[in-house]
């Protein structure tokens, strides 16, 4: 089960990277970033999974004694929690840049922006 999730996460990373590197449209590049993000999050959460473990919330099912043998690793989940929110912020920032670039040149093709080239 973990292996399939790992492969999925890595496949998403590769697809996103391919999109970032090969596409010319700025919005498509941002979509690629978004996919890369999702794949990375799946990967990190899967690494923290323990076989047969349950969610790290101590209620009547888990109890308060001998917790460590029942739950999955909570640290990667906490990291991914912040990473998702930051991912949204980065996406919003990139989209704002894309909008401004489109207003400047009326084009979404990245090879039209040659002002910084020397």
């Amino acid at each position, binding site marked *: 089960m973990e292996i399939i999730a790992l492969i999925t996460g890595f496949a998403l990373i590769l697809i996103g990277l391919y999109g970032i590197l090969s596409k010319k449209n700025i919005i498509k590049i941002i*979509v690629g970033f978004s996919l890369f993000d999702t794949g990375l999050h*799946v990967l990190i959460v899967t690494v923290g999974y323990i076989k047969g473990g*349950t969610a790290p919330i101590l209620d009547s099912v888990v109890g308060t004694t001998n917790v460590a043998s029942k739950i999955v690793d909570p640290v990667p989940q906490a990291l991914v929690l912040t990473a*998702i929110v930051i*991912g*949204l912020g980065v996406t919003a920032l990139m989209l704002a840049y894309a909008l401004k670039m489109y207003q400047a040149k009326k084009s979404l093709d990245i090879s039209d922006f040659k002002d910084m080239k020397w």
Partner: protein
Amino acid sequence: MNLIIIIVLSVVMVVMAITAIIHKKLAVAVIATGVVSLMASVMYLLMAAPDVAMTEAAIGSGLSTIIFFYVLNKIRKAK
């Protein structure tokens, strides 16, 4: 059962990701990204991470799609 669910989710996610990259229409690409986030959220639940699943449901497939469509609308208007 969990194994079957996760296999189907993986297939849907990978197919949708490929669609998001190769499809020509931008709106379809954004919707496909939303579907990837949707399925990823169910997958987090299977990985025993309800907090992450909730965040992904609220942010990944909700707000992210909304922001993308605001910008797409703006770009279409400026044409």
